[in-house]
């Protein structure tokens, strides 16, 4: 260093330059973080993952869940991709989650980003299956129902609704997803035979609405009875709109055999 004493002016200039550097660097850094860590709408996380904000904060990007998964379901997102860097995700159409009862991925997680509170794999909520009614073969009247058969929670997460048809021997069997049970494992999406899956898993936030506090559903038992809301003492018996004939014209010959 030169031995000369720094003047006040030089000192102030130095300080200003330093501050400017730090501010520019800091802003750039924050911008990068924002870009990377914004809650990603499409990312499907392993079972037990905390909500996106907490998951982003706690996942240390170690990939131990990826290694633990026996089906190679999970991948770590690479840099520069569309998903947040270094975090585990899965694409059900490639490899779905097969709902291991012992949840190896969650047990491998050192940080609790995959929460050990998940005790039963069937309680995991990785996403929600959504059916594209326009392209679902069953909704077109074909007897596909593959998603229903493949669903590990068959009958709960996906059920079939029988819709007899007046004109035809063939009834319609509509697969319906029930969000109370669907784990979002994506086995259905993997199994769907259409060229682009007609049933797919989306994060809950993308598909689920919320009814809001101000609606009172008088006909459900869950509705709390309060001072200014009393449901009728006895509900009138539900009226059957269409009377179903004894023997439906449509026949479930696939599941029950031809009569």
């Amino acid at each position, binding site marked *: 260093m030169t031995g000369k004493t720094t003047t006040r002016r030089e000192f102030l200039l130095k300080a200003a330059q330093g501050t400017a550097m730090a501010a520019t660097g800091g802003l750039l850094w924050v911008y990068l973080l924002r870009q990377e860590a914004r809650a990603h709408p499409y990312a499907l996380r392993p079972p037990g993952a905390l909500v996106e904000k907490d998951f982003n904060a706690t996942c*240390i990007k170690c990939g131990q869940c990826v290694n633990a998964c026996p089906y190679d379901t999970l991948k770590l997102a*690479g840099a520069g991709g569309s998903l947040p860097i270094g975090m585990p995700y899965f694409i059900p159409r490639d490899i779905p989650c097969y709902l291991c009862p012992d949840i190896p991925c969650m047990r491998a997680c050192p940080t609790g980003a995959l929460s050990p509170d998940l005790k039963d794999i069937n309680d995991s909520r990785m996403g929600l299956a959504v059916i594209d009614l326009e392209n679902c073969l069953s909704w077109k009247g074909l007897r596909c129902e593959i998603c229903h058969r493949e669903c590990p929670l068959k009958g709960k997460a996906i059920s079939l609704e029988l819709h007899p048809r007046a004109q035809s021997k063939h009834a319609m069997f509509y697969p319906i997803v029930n969000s109370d049970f669907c784990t979002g494992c994506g086995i259905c999406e993997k199994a769907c035979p259409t060229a682009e899956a007609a049933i797919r898993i989306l994060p809950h936030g993308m598909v689920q609405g919320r009814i809001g506090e101000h609606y009172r559903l008088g006909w459900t038992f869950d509705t709390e009875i309060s001072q200014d809301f009393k449901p009728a003492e006895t509900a009138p018996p539900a009226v059957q709109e269409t009377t179903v004939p004894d023997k439906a014209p449509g026949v479930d010959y696939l599941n029950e055999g031809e009569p």
Partner: protein
Amino acid sequence: MSDPTDTRLRADAQASLRKIHERSLGARMWSWRYVVLRRIAQVTILLLFFGTAHWGWQFPGDTPLLTGNLSSSEFMGLLPMTDPLAALQIFLTGHLLTREALIGAAVVFIFYLLLGGRVFCAWVCPVNMVTDLAGWLRTRLDIKPLFHVPRNVRYYVLAAALILSAITGVAAFEWVSPVGMMHREIIFGLGFGFLALLAIFLFDLLILKNGWCGHLCPLGGFWSLVGRGGQVRVRFDRDTCTHCGACGAVCPEPQVLNLKKLEERGLVYSGECSNCGRCTALCPENSLNFDLRALIRKHNAQARD
């Protein structure tokens, strides 16, 4: 490399430099020994992670051998290891860590605390292979410095990483770390992280010598602070040193080889020393050697009498 005909040097220093220039091929190879050992260590660690992830290496029984990556891992199902800086950032985002992660962070922290210096940087970190190559090439091509950046910038970057973690709610360095990127992308498949490494390589090669590891990397800064009091240090024998300066020319952190400080303390004191061993292998007078801190004190006391 310093010039043995530089007349500003003392005669014995010139003689020392001449010794280096006249080394036989074998001796020259031998002076690369720590570089080779470090590469073996770095690659072995990567290989253990890679083999566990891709070839299902298991030991003992059917427990994965070394699963995870440098951010957090588990060795033989027994030893959890977590990057303490990553853990600290996560903690600052306002999230409690699990016991396993805390134990892992303590294991790694204590290991390097005892070992000392930036052993992580020189012997483990994969980015070091890239920056070493850039530094070596830069010396060969004799690329002159563009500007000067103080070495302590890394501590400000470290402070910024911690502050930004608290502000943004995500571990600020982990989300941009080229160390993590390189490790993840080698072990778990390719993304565009290699572009970041290419950037570092070019930055080190053309813009600032030892720019990333020696000036900016907050992880290096962190280990510099932790490794200050470590046990494995480079001992300095002032009686044999001829002040030829060959050590400073190969050291990626030459400020730690300040001769005045070396003579005062008898060892490389600064935590910024990465224990890479380059100087010890090169010194023509054998004045620099790895040693344990306690033994160094004894050695120097004897030498003084």
